[in-house]
């Protein structure tokens, strides 16, 4: 017997079947957790926010358009949950000034076995929160500039400046000479 489609699970979840929604969580929890982790850069916090994102999704299941895929919807919702979390924690304000994570030591100098991906994560984590968010929405959720502007409720010019500045900072840190 084939696994039920996302659509079937959503319809059953709307009828009050918690187990059906649990199956959706199982399918998308890694995706959603990674969205949260890329924005928050704190594992436990990211797991909490991933749970919160699924609970919000369940509350808003009636607003979900069945004709569209569930994955992008829940990932976008997770990004929003993290953004609200950052706003409520005033972390965004604290991070307005660009942080300089300890990236002066290259991976090979810190630990030879350290993977490149971990280093990239560390560099991403060193960006201000509003830069991390536009990187998340553009590179991982593949949203257009207009969609990002609408999602974050900021002008298109701010989307571009945040995104281009974020990339410039990333390039400077990732490709800085030893």
């Amino acid at each position, binding site marked *: 017997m084939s696994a039920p489609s996302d659509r079937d699970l959503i319809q059953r979840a*709307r*009828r*009050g*079947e*918690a*187990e059906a*929604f*649990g*199956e959706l*969580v*199982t399918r998308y*929890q*890694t*995706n959603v*957790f*990674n969205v949260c*982790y*890329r924005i928050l850069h704190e*594992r436990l916090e990211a*797991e909490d926010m*991933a*749970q919160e994102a*699924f*609970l919000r999704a*369940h509350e808003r299941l009636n607003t979900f358009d069945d004709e569209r895929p569930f994955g992008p919807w829940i990932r976008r919702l997770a990004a929003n949950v993290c953004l609200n979390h950052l706003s409520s924690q005033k972390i965004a304000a604290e991070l307005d000034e660009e942080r300089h994570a300890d990236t002066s030591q290259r991976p090979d100098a810190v630990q030879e076995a350290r993977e*490149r*991906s971990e280093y*990239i*994560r560390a560099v*991403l984590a060193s960006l201000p929160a509003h830069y991390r968010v536009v*990187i998340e929405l*553009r*590179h*991982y959720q593949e949203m*257009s*500039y207009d969609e990002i502007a609408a999602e974050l409720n900021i002008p298109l010019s701010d989307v*571009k400046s945040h*995104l*281009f500045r974020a*990339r*410039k900072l*990333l*390039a400077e840190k*990732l*490709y800085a000479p030893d």
Partner: protein
Amino acid sequence: MHLTDDQLNEYLDNEINDRAQVEAHVSSCVDCAARLTALQALFDEIESLPELALSKSIAAPVTRTLSGRVSLPRSLRLTVTLQVVAAIVALLFAAPLVQQFISPYLLKIQSLSFADMFLKVQSQWGIWLNMLSQLQVPTVPEIPVVELSSLFVALTVVGVSLLWLIGNGLLLRNQMK
């Protein structure tokens, strides 16, 4: 004249209108071609980050929380609302009957001062003790009769019962799935 960083970013983001112009320039400009290649490499690095695994599944806690919430389907919520409305209407109809029943007692209580009431209770207590000593059952005050048409009473009972049955029937059906 070289391409700006904004143009290169917009080109790779597919957000530039005149892609041909950028491509034509890049094909003839070594510097801009190198910058575009470097930017593309950055895009690739960002997007090649592997997904991290969760330390533990969050499906179970989410399901538990949802089960605790007991989200009712819309049809059931409507039925429950109707039941509440029906109950309020029934209470409104019943209010005059209740008032008629207790008003004689209320009037007596309101017209008495505290001292009078104390004396009254004391004398009543004496009467009760006397009655008990004679093993007599106190007389129950007569309940005033309110005239309601039997059709009205029957319709009310049937209506409330139907709403009750529909509501609980849907609830049980959902639970048995």
